[in-house]
């Protein structure tokens, strides 16, 4: 239920977002590279800290410095959360079970895909029990810690929840 971030994860997140905001401040590449190297040296100095109390104090100081020096409009990639194109095409992504409700005359316009889909459905029926068994065996008690799915463990098995991945809608509609 509750997934806490480790100290290393917090430090790495701070490093990445500080580099991205630095990139928004120093638009010229050579200037950014110079200040990025200085920032990297500051992080490297605090890497060898063994005392967790001091390490969390350093992290807190770093976060506060980041907050005061952040860019008001940092460059966010269009497809990432907060970007301009984030989830823009979500409304056009129809669920894949709708394809089963098509009329046969519509289905005949795409014979290759629908024949492939029939073979995949048979494959899904065979492998579903194995996927469920693998997931039940590998999830820790108390619920999963993250959304990452494990890979297939044996030869000839398919990774769990492969159907949702294989039949996912396209990223950009044409």
């Amino acid at each position, binding site marked *: 239920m509750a997934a806490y971030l480790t100290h*290393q994860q917090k430090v*790495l997140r701070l*490093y*990445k977002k500080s*580099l*991205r905001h630095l990139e928004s401040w120093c638009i010229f590449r050579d200037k950014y590279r110079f200040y990025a190297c200085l920032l*990297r040296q500051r*992080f*490297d100095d605090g*890497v060898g800290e063994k005392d967790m109390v001091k390490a969390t104090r350093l992290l807190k100081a770093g976060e506060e410095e980041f907050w005061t020096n952040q860019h008001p409009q940092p460059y966010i*990639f*269009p*497809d*990432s959360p907060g970007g301009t194109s984030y989830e823009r095409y979500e409304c056009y992504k129809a669920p894949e079970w709708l394809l089963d409700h098509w009329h046969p005359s519509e289905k005949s316009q795409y014979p290759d895909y629908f024949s492939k889909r029939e073979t995949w459905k048979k494959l899904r029926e065979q492998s579903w029990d194995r996927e469920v068994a693998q997931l039940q065996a590998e999830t820790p008690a108390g619920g999963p810690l993250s959304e990452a799915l494990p890979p297939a463990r044996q030869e000839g098995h398919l990774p769990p929840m492969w159907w949702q991945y294989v039949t996912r809608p396209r990223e950009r509609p044409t």
Partner: protein
Amino acid sequence: MASRVLAQCVRTLARSSARLSGGNLAVRAVAAPVSASHRSFSVISNAERRRVLEQSRVSVVSVWCRQYGDLPPLTLETIRDRVMYVLKLYDKVNPEKLQTTSHFMKDLGLDSLDQVEIIMAMEDEFGE
């Protein structure tokens, strides 16, 4: 003037695509002495048109398929090439020791902060 020449080229291409191979020999024989002689506007446009016709004969097929402004296609080879190119540019990585199966921490001796930098380089490369 260049646009007029190109428009004439496209029109002549569309009309005589079947007899390009036969017609060009005679055209080439005409074009050589014409360009050497005195230059007037019409002579230059004729010679240029024929030269452009000869050059663009090779790319007749590509004229008919349009290339809109789009990213290069993502195939495994192109992705692998781009990833290796970006990794070789990183200064902490030895380019000779770099392979597709090399582990960042064990084989190349990189830090987790280096891992963050590499991830950021990949995001910059592939447009996130």
